[in-house]
């Protein structure tokens, strides 16, 4: 039993009294390194989360917009979370064009009804951020190039959107994103929540 103490063997032994090979020093090594590892990972957390949007950025998360002045066929560009927002009052012709497209022809199939609020099919509210690489498409301002599908045209890499702001041609993978919004009155929209 003298060997047990001098070799630093732990109390654990096999059935025949032979040491199982785990030394107290091994345990201390593993424990110390694991503890330091967990501590290091924990210390990384603040270094990583400080990069995420800060409270002042998140505080800009809702915007109220008065849409009473937008006539059918017109649109405005506004800002939400520092990103451009397109608010467009579609004409009946533009709504009909959007509804005439078969969903199976679309890269990112969505109907106009899915992209607008019930009973407000004329109010098309999307981010003005091309889903390719984030440029601002043309077509919301008076006289801007709306592209061959009558919606939006991105000048950077030639993505073309239709009157429901759905991607029809070009490199963008998705339709222009519809942000979370609600009508707080018939003429006021609150973007964000």
């Amino acid at each position, binding site marked *: 039993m003298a060997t047990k103490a001098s070799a630093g063997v732990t109390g654990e032994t096999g059935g025949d009294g032979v040491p199982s090979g785990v030394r107290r020093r091994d345990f201390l090594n593993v424990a110390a390194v694991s503890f330091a590892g967990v501590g290091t990972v924990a210390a990384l957390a603040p270094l990583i989360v400080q*990069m*995420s*949007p*800060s409270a002042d*950025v998140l505080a800009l998360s809702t915007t109220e917009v008065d849409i009473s002045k937008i006539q059918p066929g017109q649109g405005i*560009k506004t*800002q939400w*979370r*520092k*990103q*451009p927002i397109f608010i467009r009052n579609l004409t009946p012709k533009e709504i009909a064009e959007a509804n005439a497209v078969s969903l199976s022809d679309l*890269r990112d199939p969505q109907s106009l009804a899915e992209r607008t609020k019930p009973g407000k099919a004329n109010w098309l509210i999307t981010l*003005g*951020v091309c889903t*390719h*690489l*984030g*440029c*601002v498409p043309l077509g919301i301002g008076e006289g801007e190039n709306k592209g061959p599908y009558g919606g939006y045209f991105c*000048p*950077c*890499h*030639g993505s073309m959107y239709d009157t429901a702001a759905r991607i029809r041609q*070009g*490199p*963008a*993978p998705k339709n222009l994103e519809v942000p979370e919004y609600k009508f707080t009155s018939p003429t006021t929209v609150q973007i964000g929540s």
Partner: protein
Amino acid sequence: MSFSWAKPYEPKHPAMKWLDERLPIPRLVYGATGPGYPVPRNLNYFWNFGVLAGVFLTIQIVTGIVLAMHYVSTADGAFNSVNQLIMRDVNAGWLLRYAHMNGASFFFIVVYIHIFRGLYYGSYKPPRELVWMLGLVIYLLMMANAFMGYVLPWGQMSYWGAQVITGFFSAFPLVGEPIRVWLLGGYAPDQAALTRFFSLHYLLPFVIAGVVILHIWALHIPGSGNPTGVDVKDEKDTLPFHPYFTAKDGWFSASFLLIYALVTFYAPNYLGHPDNYIPANPLATPAHIVPEWYFWPFYAILRSFTLDFILPAKLWGVLAMFSSILLLFFLPWLDKSPVRSGTYRPLFKRFFWLMVIDVLILGYVGGAPISAFRTALGQFAAAYYFLHFLVILPLVSKFETTLPLPNSISESVLGKRGTMATAG
């Protein structure tokens, strides 16, 4: 390691002896860039661009540190601090800013020639694979740093460059968009992004300097390559770095800096883009958005994917663009020909020049506005780029009959002189 005939460092002055026994920095310099580093005697001018890259790194760090003393890294103040304060009010500010701006372009010119040299003379081959790979790490760091530096003046191109390049990350499914928002610290480039880019733009050059030390360290184990690609055999093949190559590097750097000075003083905005003198406007994208010229070939590869095929076209473009550089890390194993120098590889040489032309075409396509013809040309050139490195190069190195190599560096040098003498 050094060659056995390298001159040993023997300090004579008692103060130098005292220092050598305590902190042998002079010994290190003597052995790395002094008479203690024997260099092949047949180096041509392409071998000057490594030192020149170091010169430009120094210029960028020095001018950059000084500019940071005047620059204001706020979304409201950045544009004016560059274009009003630094360009008009700060004494010699215009010179420092133009020197830094064009210094970046010239740093890339020098590094591209340095990479070209490495590709032609097979500098990536054993035993210098790690030298090559560390060089690529430096190149990647340079690109990241150049991008962040370009964002700092907060002009239209700065802003939309930041938007497009961070947009690359949104190509990755699920994690992409959260990563993009995390990198920007917001949903679009703004104050948080600008400040962190400034912080990192100040940091990365010192990281680059660290990797440069590793790059030189790894180079000095086997010693410098040379235009014949033949290994150094004895003392006749080499000359001490100092005074021979310090003098040559000094003269060549001075000549090259003359071109840099010409552009900086007489055409300082030639390599830039006028739209970056318009303050950043998050609501309007410039009609023709292009990166700086040194990114054009990669931008062309990015744009050359226009159709979804299993993965979205956008993701293909981003993956292809990153892999166009990452594949260079595998070059030592893609080109297994034992002959290093392109001079003795007739077939390799032809395809090498085709690849150079191909990259120039990609550069043209990446910098020009989109048209149906240029998109098709870019797609062809992008495909050929990958074909060259992944298919042609391995096949050439397997089947090519190379020309006979000279027996030694000194023979190749003296042989030339011999024929010149008889012809004369």
